[in-house]
């Protein structure tokens, strides 16, 4: 069943994303089959959120680490991408400075801060986009898991982590654009970001990366490692007396998950056209937990389903009844917790059998 749902998920994600891209590029705006570009980027954004949800399900569903700060890793990946995109603007910025991004000129920076060097190189920026979240997760996880911090205490410190980053990135002297963050991107890898073809390409790239992350996650959870992880999640003490070191297992999966979240952030930023400290907001990470719960915790595919469903609902509700969204989200979470402990995927599987 799990293998089947994974296969269906990969086919659907790749198929629908390609179909949307083709219909966007190959048909005229007047055609009934035409998919507008805003829809392409909107779905692309959902898929990036799905990568974050998948990453979160890997740690929450399989290792019992309820991270309430996972959007921090997503945002860090996004910032690395944003820095690259800022450097690509060059003299096309408002101030026409070839080296310094607009916000630095505005804030009277004389030189590029040392940590901005190298980000004009796309390969370096992409490397940083996975390395920085991965390293942060490594240090944070090493300290937390080695000290046997778990459960609600761990959740609280993950929340503190993302909040601390939120406050730090708000500061102008951090050199990441402060409150406004980074925007007005022009092109990536030499391709104009406003072009339909680039947008369609980003959607397909998001779909491919989502499927790649899903397959990697599935490999991990179905391996012997994954069985140990489940054992650690439910009966940590027993695994220790069997000679396993739960902290090593948690650390590995936490770092892997952070890297995946970072990849999600990389694809997110060019599609939404902006990255600002709001992405670190604790509420964002909690929303991601709701996506996973709605779709079905500990199923991987459910996390993807939940992220897409809840975000599609959010797009609709915030457009049609903006004041209702937060109530709807809270109600949804209560409903799922009470009635659908295995989420929408669990409901589908029950309906099938």
């Amino acid at each position, binding site marked *: 069943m799990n293998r089947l749902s994974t296969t269906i998920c990969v086919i659907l994600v790749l198929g629908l994303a390609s179909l949307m891209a083709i219909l966007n590029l190959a048909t005229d705006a007047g055609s009934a089959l035409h998919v507008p570009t805003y829809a392409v980027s909107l779905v692309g954004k959902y898929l990036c959120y799905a990568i974050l949800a998948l990453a979160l399900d890997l740690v929450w569903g399989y290792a019992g680490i309820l991270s309430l700060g996972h959007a921090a890793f997503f945002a860090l990946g996004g910032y690395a991408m944003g820095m690259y995109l800022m450097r690509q603007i060059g003299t096309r910025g408002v101030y026409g400075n070839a080296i310094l991004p607009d916000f630095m000129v505005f804030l009277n920076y004389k030189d590029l801060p040392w940590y901005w060097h190298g980000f004009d190189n796309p390969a370096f920026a992409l490397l940083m986009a996975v390395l920085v979240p991965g390293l942060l997760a490594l240090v944070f996880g090493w300290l937390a898991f080695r000290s046997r911090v778990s459960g609600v205490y761990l959740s609280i410190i993950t929340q503190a982590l993302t909040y601390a980053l939120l406050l730090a990135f708000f500061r102008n002297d951090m050199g990441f654009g402060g409150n406004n963050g980074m925007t007005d991107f022009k092109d990536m890898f030499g391709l104009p970001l406003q072009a339909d073809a680039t947008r369609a390409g980003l959607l397909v790239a998001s779909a491919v990366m989502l499927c790649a992350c899903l397959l990697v996650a599935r490999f991990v959870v179905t*391996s*012997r*490692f994954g*069985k*140990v992880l489940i*054992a650690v999640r439910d*009966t940590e003490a027993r695994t220790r007396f069997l*000679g*396993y070191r739960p902290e090593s*297992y948690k650390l590995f999966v936490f770092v892997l998950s952070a890297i995946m979240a970072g990849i999600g952030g990389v694809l997110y930023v060019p599609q939404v056209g902006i990255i600002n400290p709001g992405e670190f907001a604790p509420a964002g990470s909690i929303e991601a937990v709701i996506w996973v719960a709605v779709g079905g915790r500990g199923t991987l595919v459910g996390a993807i389903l939940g992220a897409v469903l809840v975000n599609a609902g959010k797009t609709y509700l915030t457009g049609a009844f903006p004041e209702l969204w937060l109530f709807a989200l809270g109600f949804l979470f209560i409903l799922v917790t009470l009635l659908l402990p295995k989420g929408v995927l669990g409901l589908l599987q029950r309906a099938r059998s």
Partner: protein
Amino acid sequence: MTIGPVSGSLLYLNGVSVSFDGFRAINNLSLVLEPGEMRAVIGPNGAGKTTMMDIITGKTRPNEGQVIFGAETDLTRLDEPAIAALGIGRKFQKPTVFEPLSVWDNVLLALAGDRRPRFSLWARETAEERDRIEEILGIIRLGELRTRQAAGLSHGQKQWLEIGMLLAQEPKLLLVDEPVAGMTDSETEQTAELLREINRTRSVVVVEHDMAFVRALGVKVTVLHEGSVLSEGSIDHVSCDPRVVEVYLGR
């Protein structure tokens, strides 16, 4: 009163004490276990039986005293996984198995072998492992239930699965905490048989409340009281000991 390890002993506790918030759970406890021996440890509630196991397995660090395993390994310096790797297995009072996993996978994860993530990530089940799991499932009489989720087993079956997992670990010493609590009479009998079987190749320490079961095991008994050894010897010897009678009946 530091004396060196008793030569040839498998486990040697010397003057071990541990306090929790001023309460002396273990008080100057000394105990020697010979290789291949099975020992029953009895005592009233709060006598320190489980704390003694916690100390041996590295869960609790004693304030004083030595815990020597084999020739000269000091267990008080090691943590749980390191002690498990030395060959000390532990069965909990409440059956503790990996509920979402199958019976087969429970034994698989317990099999002696590399415990590092980088190994388990790529590990494939070998024919050798399969044979060993089959063998263990035979011993614990769960061969028919190999694909069953452990959560669906009866209480007694879970106890056996846990014992099977300990066997899979191939320990030199097995610590078993109240193995027959909550078992039916026939399950209790089968468990005694199973422990005797295990004792043929390994040393065993059994903590138990059930006197009939201890009698059925027919091994040397250590009576704990208020964190130290009150009496030691055969079951008949200790049950005649006036101090033991006093502790058990005088409560």
